[in-house]
């Protein structure tokens, strides 16, 4: 039964990968992986050592007086984030147009649309720039406008039967229209759409019940699959939620008080569904270490430490995770499994929820051990969740390697 379903999923995944836009997008993703690795490790250093109340200086009681360096590092890594996606947009345009125009029998210089795509990604990055995190719709928006721009270039070339001169007036006029439209679009997008924080929304009563948690656990990997960033209210800013503050006040009044919101995004989702990032991808990084192909193992090696600290960016670009049906299914399963298990143990009273705030950068893997009032039970349950997630990912990862070896993605 499981084998049949997996086969069907693999067939669907293979068919999905044969679509030219997807195939060329994944090729562009894989090309920027070395940049992503540098970027992720720079982020990690900043997060663990230099952020205000960073984990390592805090627990070692050291005060690093490198504020200037820290701010520069933060600016550098934030700019790097935008640059990587600009490279992806440019490379995608190059690969897609090369193949598409070749199919149509046109020989064209793709430099202009490549530059337009690069500029579009940077323009949107600059208009929504924040040091802390990228806008929630950054990836999906940039990829969507890049695709539309590529399509318009193809249609213009088809319409004019390839007679226009490269970098001639008509193509330059096309580039000017595309960039003007993008700038207009950027100016009319409400900030509420592009922001990455929705504190009021996640403080709603719906997110204090097991069903709210389960639905969110299912939707998170799907949103990630579609290119939406995960709201910071479920990660770094989870302790700002009103449910968490309510619990904290209760604990400060009486240490083993009955908590008003035992199930909340911080105590359930952050601590169990997001171990290693969306979809519990620490388990995926571990699985990659045990694969036969050296290339996959290398990806696992590079992504392991960042995944411990909840960054799955290397996997997002390297496998890739974004827009890949074969990785979406185990992500949803692992996310739901972790959430259901934690929710159940809190409900039956075995586990005291995660209540306290932890130093910035504390891994979700250890969050419940650090901040629950039953740390050993919490550690045990986290271990069960991690092992279960590894078991969920393993058959999918094996098939992924097999399909990769068969040359699904070239």
């Amino acid at each position, binding site marked *: 039964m499981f084998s049949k379903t997996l086969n069907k999923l693999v067939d669907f995944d293979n068919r999905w990968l044969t679509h030219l836009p997807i195939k060329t997008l994944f090729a562009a993703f894989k090309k920027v992986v070395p940049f992503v690795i540098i970027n992720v490790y720079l982020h990690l250093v900043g997060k663990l050592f230099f952020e205000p109340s960073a*984990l390592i200086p*805090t*627990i*070692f009681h050291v005060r690093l007086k490198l504020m200037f360096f820290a701010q520069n590092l933060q600016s550098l890594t934030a700019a790097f984030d935008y640059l990587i996606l600009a490279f992806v947009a440019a490379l995608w345009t190059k690969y897609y147009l090369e193949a598409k125009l070749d199919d149509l029998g046109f020989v064209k210089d793709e430099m202009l649309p490549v530059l337009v795509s690069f500029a579009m990604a940077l323009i949107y990055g600059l208009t929504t720039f924040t040091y802390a995190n990228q806008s929630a719709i950054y990836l999906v928006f940039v990829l969507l406008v890049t695709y539309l721009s590529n399509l318009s270039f193809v249609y213009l070339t088809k319409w004019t039967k390839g007679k226009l001169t490269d970098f001639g007036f008509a193509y330059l006029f096309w580039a000017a229209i595309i960039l003007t439209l993008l700038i207009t679009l950027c100016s009319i997008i409400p900030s509420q759409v592009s922001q990455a924080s929705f504190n009021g929304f996640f403080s709603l009563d719906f997110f204090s019940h097991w069903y709210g948690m389960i639905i969110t656990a299912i939707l998170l990997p799907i949103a990630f699959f579609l290119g939406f960033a995960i709201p910071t209210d479920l990660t770094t800013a989870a302790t700002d939620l009103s449910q968490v503050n309510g619990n904290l006040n209760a*604990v*400060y*009044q009486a*240490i083993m008080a009955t908590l008003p919101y035992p199930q909340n995004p911080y105590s359930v989702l952050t601590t169990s569904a997001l171990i290693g990032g969306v979809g519990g991808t620490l388990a995926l990084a*571990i699985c990659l*270490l*045990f694969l036969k192909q*050296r290339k996959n*193992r290398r990806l*696992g*090696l590079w992504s*392991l*430490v960042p995944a*411990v600290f909840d960054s799955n960016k290397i996997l997002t670009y390297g496998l890739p995770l974004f827009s890949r049906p074969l990785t979406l299914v185990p992500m949803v399963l692992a996310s739901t499994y972790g959430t259901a298990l934690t929710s159940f143990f809190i409900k039956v009273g075995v586990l005291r929820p995660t209540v*306290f705030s*932890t*130093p910035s950068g*504390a*891994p979700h*893997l*250890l969050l419940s*051990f*650090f*901040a629950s009032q039953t*740390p050993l039970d919490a*550690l045990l349950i986290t271990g069960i969740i991690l092992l279960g997630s590894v078991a969920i990912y393993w058959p999918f990862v094996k098939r992924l390697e097999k399909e990769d070896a068969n040359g699904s993605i070239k």
Partner: protein
Amino acid sequence: MAQSSKQGLSWPKKLRLFWQTTARSSKWALSLTIVAVVILAVLGRMWMLSEHQNDRAIQKSRIQPVIFVPGSSATIQRFNSLFTTLNSESKSSSGTHSILKVQVNTDGSLSYSGHLSTSSRQPFIVVGFERNQDNYPTVQADAQSLGTVMTDLQSKYHFRNFSAVGHSNGGLIWTDYLENYYSATSFHIKTLMTLGTPFNFSESSTTKKTTMLSDFIDGSDELPSDLTVYSVAGSDDYTDDGTVNVQSVLSGKYIFQKKVAKYTQTTVSGDNAQHSKLPENPEVVNLIRELILDNKSGRPGESANKAKTATP
């Protein structure tokens, strides 16, 4: 053949075989990561335990000390007379205020004297500095030391809310501290009262700003927005209190006005309005009692409002 022999094995043996056939680099990476995570877990948990016991104590603490900082060339004994007056008045009502004195020595070490009783809700703490010359670098250095003292005091006595009084350069030290070292997540300052504080040092012109005043104005966005500030000037001969020019004291408005919740300037006069005697001035005592201490009874017939009208 190999597959069939593998199928006959038990689970532990299968796992062992699986581990043995795993690449060496993967084994090393996984093992080292597990060791690092275990170390992080132990240290992190220890930190969390100490931190949250402290947090809980701070949250539950009811004491709200009044912290006094003397000016240049003054010792931690500067406010003795003021404390005697305030304690003699409050014996009959809310009980006396216990007194703790902290001296910051030149080498940065702290010397404690007196005691702080948690039964008195508003104990007095004096923070004095052995290095107390009348110049801007000293003010900056003392403000940094004040940050260290505050953290040390909080870890010992678990308070969050406090009020502050600064006499002369003590007010400058508080201002520098609030702009550069105060953290609203750790503390909550309710009221700051400065007594004869020369915000523009000896400069009497309102158009000429010293480097210190310019720095304070530049950093004023960092001041707590819910703070109440009272700036008290002494007037001995209509222009100064014998040491500090009234105009320099009034320059505080460029720092605090529109940046904090409430900013009030008051001038006191009379026999005890000389700079060094400001802390003993009856009007100042009354202002502290009414505006800083909870005991608002005061002496009949004397009120801060009356003092406010005592401008020349």
